[in-house]
């Protein structure tokens, strides 16, 4: 066997991964070729160096984390529900009792899911409103159409929304209209009216909510921002600002 034909088989020879015939050929060649013997020695040395690194030690907490996740995985799903084997021998009354218990369980679960999803959707809405407000402050301008003229702002929405929000300039009352833009809240396009009060920016988000009854304003504070939400005439309003709540409520009364 020639050196250039030996190629990658030296490593396999050292790893004892060759079939007996090839192994014999390589051994014979190594016995007669100094260059290949030197190469074999180098390869052996490299192998030892890497082997000497040994395994990395997994951090101690990893074991605990994995066990915890395994416990979580086996506690919850996937385990087939095993009914007691003698269930079809149960007397009718006990059957009925079980069915009733199942129905009650189902109802309770459904109610819980319903409540949770409602809570979730309100919380999500609040988050969307907060995010939209903060995002508007991060932009160069919170408005896409900058105008204090209600007659400029209102037509700007035409064709951009499927409803016409009412737009008022409240400069006389100390809340000059800065303009408006479109935003995206609760998975729909909404109108965002931007008012200013001194250095504060107020975003008023408006969208149609046909099924919502008129409601008095609900006040809340999220991450230091004051929010007011109400609905009137089938329109939902969300006002948000770092303005104090009393002044925000004045604006709400004017809108």
């Amino acid at each position, binding site marked *: 066997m020639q050196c250039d034909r030996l190629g990658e088989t030296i490593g396999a020879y050292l790893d004892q991964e060759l079939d007996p015939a090839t192994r014999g050929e390589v051994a014979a060649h190594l016995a007669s070729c100094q260059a290949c013997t030197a190469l074999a020695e180098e390869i052996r040395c490299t192998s030892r160096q*890497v082997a000497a690194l040994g395994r990395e030690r997994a951090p101690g907490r990893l*074991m605990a984390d994995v066990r915890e996740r395994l416990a979580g995985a*086996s506690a919850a799903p996937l385990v087939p529900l095993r009914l007691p084997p003698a269930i079809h021998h149960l007397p009718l009354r006990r059957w009925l009792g079980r069915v009733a218990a199942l129905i009650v369980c189902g109802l309770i679960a459904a109610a819980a899911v319903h409540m949770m999803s409602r809570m979730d959707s309100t919380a999500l809405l609040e988050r969307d409103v907060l995010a939209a407000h903060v995002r508007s402050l991060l932009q160069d301008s919170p408005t896409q159409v900058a105008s204090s003229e209600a007659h400029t702002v209102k037509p700007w929405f035409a064709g951009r929304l499927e409803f016409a929000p009412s737009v008022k300039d409240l400069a006389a009352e100390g809340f000059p209209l800065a303009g408006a833009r479109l935003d995206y809240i609760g998975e729909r396009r909404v109108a965002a009216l931007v008012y200013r009060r001194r250095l504060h920016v107020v975003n008023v988000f408006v969208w149609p909510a046909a099924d919502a009854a008129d409601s008095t304003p609900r006040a809340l504070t999220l991450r230091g921002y004051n929010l007011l939400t109400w609905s009137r005439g089938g329109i939902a309003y969300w006002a948000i600002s770092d303005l104090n709540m009393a002044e925000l409520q004045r604006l709400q009364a004017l809108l």
Partner: protein
Amino acid sequence: MTERAEFERLALPHMDAAYTLAFWLLRSRPDAEDAVQDAYLRAFRAVRNVQGDIRPWLLKIVRNVALRKLSERARTANVIPFDAARSDRLGSERGALQVAADAPSAEDVAVEAGEQAMVRAALAELAPTFREALVLREIEALSYREIAGLTGVPIGTVMSRLARARAELRKVLARMMRRGESDAV
């Protein structure tokens, strides 16, 4: 419940092996921890009547999870010019990503001047395929057949990859030694 106990009995002893492969593929300890957690969870869900040594099978899952992470990382790196200064921290001319390499830098090596540190740094520089081949063969001492099954390539490919990986490693080590000497002068 007993199913979990059985799985833990078989799989948990291989956690260092799993962690080692994940670490050398990802070159980041936090990422390796994530990969091991995901892999164990996957393995547990997939396991049915595994008998004997489950290490190669477990390592295969670890590998899949780690490779997915690597490709996610590569996608992110395409979008964001990601730590450009750090990307050639190990002085690699290879296109391989050098993200968050926990392996010691060339400077660390010079300070520690330990052979092991140098081997670690050299190994970290190799392409993922070569790192993987060396870890599975030299550290895990798996047979070519097991490595072939684990990486999904023919045995012949395992053989040539290993040969190239060892040659590459020798080359990088030689370069580091030369640099170390010229630093010392």
